[in-house]
């Protein structure tokens, strides 16, 4: 872990703001699992829930440093881009820990180890998408928390209800019918999610650079 990511993660952990998304996700896992039948739909549900949690954690990371502290961090690390990307990395790390916990717990309780690879893809894509959506609605792109919450809720609803929106609606749709789609479709959704996430992160970076 780079010294910068280590510092950002340590600073986040010293606050209390990470506790709420973590507890919320653990509660969601308790409701969704443990799986009683095929594990793939449960993976899809649990990983879909990681999108709003990843979004929330990203806001926590992006809002954690106070302005003067952030100014010093930027000065030490040679400017905005490196620190911003490190914050994205920190958010991915924190969300990824929850994703790994969910994956391991659902796999262990279902005993369907053979499906773990597909589950890992589910959790990886939703972790990335959640963090990507978080970057575009947090500081410095949006300074006011009110707008952050409104847009965050809007993104979650869009993910849930827009047909075939990757990754949430597409994943849920894959397993919603009586005859689930082929597991290979997960990789197509993952590819779409990666493209969407990279575009959103690039947009967030461009906007953030103007507003820092």
């Amino acid at each position, binding site marked *: 872990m780079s*010294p*910068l990511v*280590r*510092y950002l993660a*340590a*600073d986040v952990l*010293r*606050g209390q703001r990470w506790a709420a998304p973590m507890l919320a996700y653990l509660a969601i896992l308790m409701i969704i699992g443990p799986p009683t039948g095929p594990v793939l739909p449960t993976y899809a549900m649990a990983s879909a829930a990681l999108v709003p949690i990843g979004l929330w954690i990203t806001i926590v990371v992006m809002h954690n440093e*106070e302005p*003067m*502290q952030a*100014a*010093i961090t*930027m*000065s*030490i*690390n*040679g*400017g*905005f881009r490196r620190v911003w990307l490190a914050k994205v990395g920190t958010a991915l790390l924190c969300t990824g820990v929850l994703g790994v916990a969910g994956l391991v717990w659902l796999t262990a309780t279902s005993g369907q180890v053979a499906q773990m690879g597909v589950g890992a893809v589910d959790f990886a894509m939703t972790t990335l998408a959640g963090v990507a959506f978080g970057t575009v609605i947090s500081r410095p792109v949006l300074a006011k928390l009110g707008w952050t919450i409104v847009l965050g809720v809007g993104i979650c609803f869009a993910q849930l209800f827009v047909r075939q929106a990757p990754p949430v609606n597409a994943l849920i749709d894959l397993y919603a019918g009586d005859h689930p789609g082929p597991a290979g479709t997960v990789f197509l959704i993952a590819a779409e999610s990666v493209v969407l996430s990279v575009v959103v992160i690039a947009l967030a970076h461009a906007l953030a*650079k*103007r507003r*820092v």
Partner: protein
Amino acid sequence: MTVIVAGNGIGKSTLLRIVAGASVPTSGTVIGRPRTVGYVPERAPAAIRMTARQYLAHIGRMRGLSPGETNARTNELAERLRLVPGPDVPIAALSKGNGQKVAVMQAFLKHPDLLVVDEPATGLDAPARAELTALMAQAEQDGARILLSVHESAVPNGRMYRLRDGKLEPEALRGMRVSLRPTRSGLRAGDLGAEVLLEEPGRVVVRTDDADKLLLTALADGWSLIEAVS
């Protein structure tokens, strides 16, 4: 050393932040910024939950220092700046002045190639200000370039620029600045008959158009000359 003076709200802090890499310019680019930049902001970060030692340990790692080097330098700077009650207290629990000392410590943890200091007198007590001046002099001796924004009354030696309408203009100081040290008690800077720029324990800085007359009077009264700069 380059000194920038300007009134409130003109943009000198913004300029310093851009030079230090702590802010992104709306247009244009900064070129030639060296690798190690020490930046002391005008206001100390007051809400950091770590202790000064933990915070500086992270800064040391980011600067590429070994834990031993960082710890030794932390102890040295805490002692020199008289950080009270010490580096093992959460920064959020420190007073404003001591929080500012931590901001100074992080800038000097590793020898800076460029030192950017925004209003160094803000929040620091007189001994800490004197120590900061000594640290800056040492850094300059070691080859650091220094960019400083100060209130006009505390202008040190160096090239001075005034920030006006977004442009830096060389500032010519009128007359001569004379630094004096009292050799007996009861001496008051106000009695020198010159404009007092700075008055602190053991040192006053005044500006005069007639340095010969001022020095004759001052030396006769019991002042000792530290330096005179035109």
